[in-house]
C-alpha cells in the first residue's frame, strides 16, 4: 500500500497510478543499432534498495512522475515530474 505525493494533486493512493519502469534508462536515438536498443529495453538491474522509477498518474493529472522508491520497504524518498522543464517549474514554486 503505497501513497504517492503527486506534485500536482497531493498525496494519493497508489491505485490511482500505473507503474512505468526504470527511470534511469537513456533511450537511444531512433536510428541507433539493434544492440543499443536491446540494452535499453531488455537489460535491467534488480536493485535491492532505492531505485528511480517512472509512475503515471493515470487516474489523476496524467503526469509521468520520477519516483525514488525502496524496493524493500516501499518507502518513497522523492517525487518529481519526469519532464525536466516541469521539474524546474515545480522546484521554483516550492
Amino acid at each position: 500500500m503505497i501513497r504517492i505525493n503527486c506534485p500536482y494533486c497531493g498525496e494519493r493512493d497508489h491505485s490511482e497510478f500505473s507503474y512505468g519502469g526504470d527511470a534511469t534508462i537513456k533511450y537511444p536515438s531512433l536510428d541507433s543499432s539493434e544492440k543499443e536498443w536491446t540494452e535499453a529495453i531488455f537489460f535491467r538491474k534488480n536493485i535491492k534498495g532505492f531505485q528511480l522509477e517512472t509512475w503515471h498518474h493515470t487516474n489523476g493529472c496524467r503526469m509521468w512522475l520520477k519516483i525514488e522508491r525502496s524496493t524493500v520497504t516501499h518507502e518513497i524518498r522523492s517525487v518529481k515530474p519526469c519532464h525536466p522543464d516541469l521539474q524546474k517549474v515545480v522546484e521554483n514554486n516550492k
Partner: protein
Amino acid sequence: MKTSRLKNYGKINRDNDLSFTWDNKKYKGFKGDTLASALLANNIGVVGRSFKYHRPRGIFSSGVEESGALVTVGSKDRRDPNVRATTQELYDGLKASGQNAFPNVNFDLAGINNYLGRFFASGFYYKTFMGIPPFEWGKGTAIWMFFEKFIRKAAGMGSASTLPDPDSYEHAHDFCDVIVVGSGPSGIAAAIEAAEKKLDVILVEQDSLIGGDQLSEYEFDSSHIENQIKNLGIKVMTRTTAFGLYDNCVVGLLERVTDHLLLPDKTLPRQRFWTIRAKHIIVGAGAIERHIAFNNNDIPGVMTVNASKHYLNRYGVLTGKKIVITANNDSVYETAELLSEAGANVTVLDSRTNFEIETNKTFEIRRGYVPYNINGSKKIDSLDISKSKNISKSETINCDQVLLSGGWSPAVHLLSHRGVKPKWDYENACFLPSDTKENITMIGSSRGLWNKNDCIASGVAGATDALNRLGISKTNYFFPKPGGWKNPIKPLYEVKYNKSRSKSFVDYQHDVTSDDVRLAHREGFISVEHLKRYTTLGMANDQGKMGNIIGLSLMADLLNKEIPEVGTTVFRPPYTPVSIGALSGRNVGKHFRPLRVTPMHQWNIDHGAKMIEVGLYQRPWYYPKENETLSNSYIREATTVRKTVGICDVTSLGKIAIQGPDSSEFLNRIYSNGFSKLKVGKARYGIMLRDDGIVMDDGTSWRLAENEYFMTTSTGEAAKVMSWLEELLQTRWTNLNVNVTSVSEQWAGVSIAGPKSREVLNNCVIDSSVINNNNLPFMGVTSTFLKGKIPCRIARISFSGELAFEVYVKSDFSNTMMDLLWENAKKNDGCLYGLEALGALRVEKGHVTAAELDGRVTIDDAGLSKMASSKKSYIGSAMRKRGVLKNNDREILVGFFPANLKETFNAGTIVCEKHNIKGQGIGRITSVTYSPELGHWIGIGFVKGGLDRWKDTILVGADPVRNKQMNLKIVSPHMVDPKGERMHA
C-alpha cells in the same frame, strides 16, 4: 463432561432468553452467549467430527484459535460452513449443525476412518497421485478426476451454500494517527495514553465486548471502560478483526456488522472490509494457550485451561464436575482456584517438581505428574497419568474434563505479516516479537508479558514509543521484561506412550498426529516449510495457532536441535478467515467492473440492437429482425452492406487530439509508415510498434490543419496508446512541442459503408459537394455540417472494403445524427449493422484486429510489411529486424477455407500438418465467419511460413476443446475484392 450454568457467574443477560437449534433440536441460551457457551450450557459435548478420522470433537477453546467446534450456521442462501462456534454470537433463531458427519456428529458412519489410519497418514495424496501421465489432449487427467470426487467428498468440512449470496458487503477506508489492535489491559492503556496526548486513535477489538482477557475476570464490566475511552474521542470498533498488516502502516480490518443478527438490517452490509492508513500501529493481540500432545488428547471434554475460566466468568458455565488440569506453568492456578470455588473437584498435574505456589488449598496438586492417555470416546471417562515422562508408575484418575496448558504463544502473527521473524525465548518457552524499524509496537502478552500490571505498563510505553517515533514527544520509556511468573515454565510439548496405538494430536483440525511428524522426518521432510506442506500441520483455518509450536518441538527433538534452529513458519494474512464476499465488496454482478456505453447506446437498443461487451464497452452486436438468430441477422447485415448500405456505431474507438508545431514529426516517429508528407485534409492508416518491434496498435490519423491531427485507436488499446503518447512526450522527447488530449468521450462516431453510402450522406450534409469523389477522395477528410447545422468531421475510410465514410459529431448530437442517417439509409434499403457483421466484413478483407494483434505479432507477420517505412527511423524500427522476428518459421497471416466447403470451424483451432497433429501445431486460426459473399465459412490466422509454403497443401485444423478436426485449405487473407476496387469507387 457434565456442565452446568451457575447462577452467580457470567456477564450474560439472563432476562433475555434466546432459542436456537443445534442439529435440528431446540435449545435455550441467553443474550451474551456464544454458540459454544450455549452448547456447553446445554451439556452438548460432541460438536463436530474430525477432518480425516471422523473422531468426535468437542470445544477446545473460547476464541479464534478454535479447531474443534467448527460448525455450519444458517440455512439456505445464508448457510455458512466452518464457523467457529466459540466466536459466533448467539441470536434468537440461530440454526447450527455439526459438520463432516453422516447422519450426525454423535453417530457418524465414517468413524471407521479412525481404524483405517494408515491410509490417511501424511503424504497420502502425494504418494498416491505421483506419476499421473502428463497432460495431453483427451487423456491423462482421468485418474485424478476419478479420485477427486471421492477425496473432495470425504475431506469436506461443511459445505457453503450454492445459492447467490443475498447479503451485501462494503469496502471502507479510514485514517488515523494510531491504531491499537486489541482491547486487553495493554491495548486500553495504550489507546488512553495516545488519546490523552491528542492523537487520533482507533481501537479495534475482534470480540463483541472490549476488555480482552479481562472478560474472564469475575468482576470486570466492559461498559465502564467503553464509556471512558469513547469520551476521550477514541474510535472503538468491536466485532472487528485486524487480519493483516501491509506496507506503510496499512491495516486490513474485517468488521462483522450483522453476523450476530438473524435477519440483517437491509440498510447495512453484512461485513465491512476496512483499509486503515495509520501513522503508527500498536499491537496488543494477546497470547494463545497451547495444548499438550498425548494419546487421545482430543476426546470431547478436553479444553485449554483459560477457556474454562472464560466460560465460567463470562458465560456462567462450569465446564466440568471432576476436572484435571495438566500444566507446566503458573498460569493455571488462578483458574484452579476459581473452578473449585465454583464447585468443581479439581486436581492439578504439574509436570514440574520444584516450584512454590500459594493457593487456597481447595484442590490437589500432583507435582511431577504428566498425562499420557485419555480413556473414553465421545466423553472422558478417566485419565492415565504418570510420574515423569517415561511412563513407569502409572495411575488412572476418574474425571469428566481434562484442561491443558502447555504454555502460551504470544500472537506475533500481525508482525510476522511484515516479514519480522520472531525470536525464541528459552526462559518463557515461546516466540517473542523482534524489533522492527517500521512504526509498529508490540505490547501486552503479545510481547510475552504474563501479568496485568506489566501489560498496562507496556501499553503506556507503547503509546510513548508511538509519540516519539511520530516526532511529537521525546520521552523516555521502558517495556517490562518478558515473563512475569513466579516459577519458570518447564517445556512440555508431548508425552509419548508407545505401548498403545492411540493417536496423539498436534494439530486437531487437520488431524495431524505426533506420528505424522515423525513419519515426515523419516521421509526426509525436515525443513519446517516442507513439514508443514507434507503433513498439512498448521494449514487448517486456525493456521496452527495452538499446534505449530508442538510440531516444531517434535521436529527439533528428532533432529537433535533446539526449536529456533528448526525455525518457525511465516504467518501470512489473514489472521482469521476473511469471506470472499468482503474481499469483493460492492464489485459484484453489474458492478464487477465499470460499464462504458456510447452516447447512442439507448438509440441502438431502441432500434433493436443486441449488445455485446468489448472491453468495458457495450457495443451493438447485431440487430435481429423478428425471429432472426444471431447468424441470420449478421449474414443479412453483412450482405446488405455489400449490396446497399449499413450504419454502425464505432464510437468506442479511442480518439486523441494531437496538437502543436511538432505534431507531424511526432506521428512520424510513432508510426511505422511515413506521416511527414500527409497533406491537410487527408487521413492515413498507421501502425504503431512497441520498443521491441512488436505491433502495439493500429488506427488512422487525420490531418485537420497544419498543426492538428485527429487520431483513432482500436477500442481495446485506447487507454494504453494514450498513456504511451504521454510517456514519450513527458519522458523521452521532451523537446517536442506537442500536446495530446483524449477526446474519446467528446466525439460520437459512426461508419456508413456500402455502395450507397455516398447517396445516404448526400442527403444528410448541408453541402453535398464537399463529399463528392473530387472533394473527398479515398482517405480524404473534411469538416462540414450535417442538416440541422450540426458540425461534423467526415473521413472516407473503409474497414469493410466497401465505399465507406466515418462521421464524427460531438457526443451531444449523436442521436440526431443517428436519426438523420438512419432515415436516409432506410430509403436506400440499408440496415443497421453490429460487431458480428463488421467482423464478417473485415475477415473477408483480411483486416487484422485485436484477435490477430495479440502482442506477439510483428508487422511482417501480419502481412503489412509495406507499412514499414525504409526511409525513416521510428519506434521499433531497429528491433523489428531482430533475428528471431525475421526467421523463416514465423507464423504469417493467411486465410483459411475448410477443404470441404460445407464444414465450419472455430477461432482457436490449432493448425497442424496432416501426420503430425500435436502440441501447438504450426499455426492457429484467430477469427472465423460465414462469408455471405463467398457462401461458406472462412477464417484468418497464422501459419509458419505463410501462404507461400502451404498454398498447395491440405492442413488439419484441430479443435481439442470441441473434439473436432477438419481439413483446411490455405488461401490469401484478402478473400473478397483483393484489389480494393470497391472502396475507391
